[in-house]
């Protein structure tokens, strides 16, 4: 709780109590508000009015002077401004009104700029996408209890996706003096508990100086690998309470960057020896490249070893145009596998067939028994218990808890030293064979894309190819692919820059695609990039208000709908269970099993987007109409506005 200071000229607790009464009867002079002894005295059941209530009921009210000194929230803005936080997407809320007012008035609504959101999940999703496009964290504010409850799924996605998001939640701890009714419903002893299982750190500061330390600390923790969201509960009283006039000097701690943790050097040498002497080494990467430098390092390691790279795609780790980029089936023949920042090592070298075997399914293993496994993962340094994002346990031969990108320079040097001279010809031959396989793989991909080219609804391969044709000459960034379009973008588009592929949601919480796209497009706007998303129907409808945020704040984004009119994963799940149980799936009047379709009526996403301020067109049913529609939308986006093309598509 807040430290009490008898020398304070203005008591925020008394002020809040007075303001609550004033809401119904007028304003009382806080100096004449209720006193503690009066409240604590043993009283009869029929209570006489205390001084506070009596003053409110009998009149002679006085307005507060309005000159209450510098509010604590102004100092908080000073702190926030030291950290170069450009934006603050948020849904407004009374519990952080003090900070809100300071941000836009005292802080002049710059660094950060407040962006109006219509759902806390959208706000956090925007922070998530923004970070992945720019490499810079931004912050959000949420209302106590209910606002944070709205935000939770997006926070979990950020946690699983190892993305730093700074969250401040308003709260009002003082039960005796906070406003009754709604504000009290929206207060809790510990709002941080709502997200503690999937945030890196949280705090509940009780003084302005405590805020300064904790805000800088939370920024540092969020941006030290493994990255992750962080949370601060901010007491309503603390925001409004004036800075004490007793000579206390407030200071803002200087932010400093921590060196990322690296793998142990002995383990690095052991791993290098295994890789250098392997016949069929395979490099598997998921979130290994945190920065563009990470991509370069991975290319260097792969070329040094002439080893195939499987990019699992939660980041753009390795160019898909490079001949060493290979599909996951190369794992089957590997004798040494190095996994870097894998979100699921078990499922990389094993698998699960959902075939109802013994009512559940079948585990399979993909690797040979003698295969050696190496791991570098910063996530090993931070594991919590409740949520199961750590996945199944996989035994590893050389395990290095540490940041993969930071470890790569020493690993590369160790591999250079470990490769025997007499193996260099063998490595060259290995590379030549992989180069041929890569070229053949691309041919096969194109043949697969050609199937159903003229189909109606539009095939997902056609959708993605038509889209690429319209953006290929721009500095494009594919900010999100929600739903599932059979990975056609990764398979067909040349992805060579880190911002051309931003990965998925992390926790696979549906509803990430739209807000993360808008957030990433916000970052790309300032960097001069053209943002495009493949937007699924179900994902958009969780919180479509984020489209309004994009229009309101002039965030250019081309959203091309993958409108397959269903929660398609669930369509297949229910069908699968019906088959296992030898029952005909009840599809009612829809196409998918009851409860899984988004049809009857079909949602007119283009009209929805139009109503929220977007340029939009559709529904596109004939694939021949797709190219011209996207071309028109591209021109709109280049002018600085968001645009949506509603396309009726095949399921996957």
């Amino acid at each position, binding site marked *: 709780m807040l430290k009490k200071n008898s020398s304070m000229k203005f008591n925020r607790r008394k002020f809040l109590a007075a303001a609550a009464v004033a809401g119904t009867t007028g304003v009382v002079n806080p100096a004449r508000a209720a006193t503690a002894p009066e409240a604590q005295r043993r009283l009869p059941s029929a209570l006489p009015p205390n001084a506070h209530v009596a003053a409110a009921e009998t009149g002679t009210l006085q307005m507060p002077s309005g000159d209450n000194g510098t509010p604590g929230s102004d100092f908080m803005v000073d702190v926030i401004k030291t950290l170069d936080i450009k934006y603050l997407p948020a849904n407004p809320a009374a519990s952080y009104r003090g900070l809100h007012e300071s941000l836009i008035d005292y802080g002049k609504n710059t660094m950060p700029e407040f962006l109006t959101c219509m759902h806390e999940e959208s706000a956090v999703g925007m922070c998530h996408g923004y970070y992945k496009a720019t490499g810079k964290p931004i912050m959000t504010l949420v209302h106590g209890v209910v606002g944070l409850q709205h935000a939770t799924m997006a926070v979990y996605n950020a946690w699983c996706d190892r993305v730093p998001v700074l969250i401040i939640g308003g709260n009002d701890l003082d039960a005796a003096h906070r406003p009754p009714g709604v504000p009290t419903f929206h207060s809790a002893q510990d709002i941080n508990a709502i997200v503690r299982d999937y945030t890196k750190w949280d705090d509940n500061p009780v003084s302005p100086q405590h805020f300064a330390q904790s805000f800088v600390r939370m920024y540092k923790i969020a941006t030290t690998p493994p990255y992750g969201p962080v949370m601060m509960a901010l007491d309503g009283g603390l925001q409004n309470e004036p800075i004490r006039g007793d000579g206390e000097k407030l200071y803002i701690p200087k932010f400093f960057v921590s060196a990322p943790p690296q793998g142990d050097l002995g383990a690095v040498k052991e791993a290098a020896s295994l890789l250098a002497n392997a016949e069929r080494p395979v490099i598997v990467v998921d979130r290994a490249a945190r920065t563009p430098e990470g991509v370069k390092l991975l290319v260097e390691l792969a070329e040094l070893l002439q080893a195939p790279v499987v990019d699992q795609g939660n980041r753009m780790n390795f160019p898909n145009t490079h001949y060493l980029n290979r599909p996951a089936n190369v794992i089957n023949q590997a004798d040494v596998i190095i996994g870097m920042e894998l979100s699921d090592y078990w499922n990389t070298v094993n698998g699960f*067939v959902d075939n109802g075997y013994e009512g559940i399914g079948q585990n*399979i293993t993909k690797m040979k028994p003698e295969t050696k496994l190496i791991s570098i993962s910063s996530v090993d340094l931070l594991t919590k218990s409740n949520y199961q994002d750590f996945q199944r346990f996989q035994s590893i031969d050389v395990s290095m808890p540490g940041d993969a990108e930071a470890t790569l320079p020493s690993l590369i040097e160790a591999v250079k030293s470990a490769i025997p001279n007499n193996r260099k010809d063998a490595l060259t031959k290995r590379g030549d064979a992989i180069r041929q396989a890569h070229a053949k793989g691309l*041919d096969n991909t194109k043949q697969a894309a050609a199937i159903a080219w003229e189909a109606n609804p539009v095939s997902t391969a056609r959708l993605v190819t038509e889209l690429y044709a319209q953006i290929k000459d721009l500095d494009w960034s594919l900010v999100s692919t929600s739903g599932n379009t059979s990975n056609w973008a990764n398979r067909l588009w040349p992805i060579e820059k880190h911002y051309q592929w931003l990965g998925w949601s992390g926790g696979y919480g549906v509803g990430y695609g739209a807000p993360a796209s808008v957030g990433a497009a916000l970052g790309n706007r300032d960097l001069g990039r053209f943002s495009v998303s493949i937007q699924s129907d179900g994902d958009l409808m969780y919180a479509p208000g984020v489209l309004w945020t994009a229009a309101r704040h002039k965030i250019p984004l081309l959203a091309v709908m993958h409108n397959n009119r269903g929660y398609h994963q669930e369509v297949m799940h229910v069908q699968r269970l019906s088959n296992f149980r030898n029952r005909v799936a009840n599809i009612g009047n829809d196409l998918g099993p009851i409860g899984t379709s988004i049809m009857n009526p079909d949602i007119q996403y283009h009209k929805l987007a139009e109503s929220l301020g977007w340029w939009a067109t559709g529904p596109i049913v004939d694939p021949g109409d797709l190219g011209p529609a996207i071309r028109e939308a591209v021109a709109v986006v280049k002018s600085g506005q968001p645009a949506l093309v509603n396309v009726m598509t095949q399921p996957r």
Partner: protein
Amino acid sequence: MRFVRVPVAPALVALAAFAASFGGQGTAVAASAEKGKAAFIQRGCWQCHDYNGQGSVATSNGTVIARTALPLDAFKSFVRNTNGAMPPYRPQVLSDDELDDIYAYLQSLPQPKSPSDIPLLGDVRAQ
């Protein structure tokens, strides 16, 4: 729950095995492609194989069933007995006549264009 080593995708193994064991035994049947298309949609085949049988790496392991090379008997046996990623369709769910019609529908689908005849596919993955 068993734990087994499966070197390649189970659905492909099963398909290959059925193709080998039933090779050349397919028979022409009097079936309706039109009815087959209706059954293909009504019974949920489209969900993993898309409306035109092109399939997906995400749902059918990349297997294309449009104009499938499997003989009819092998096709039917696979659909009835698969124990891989695809759930089996037993007679309570899909009749023999419907299976015949679905096969006819798949065989009626047009031959895909060559990628070289689709200019847009010439642009992708330029190096």
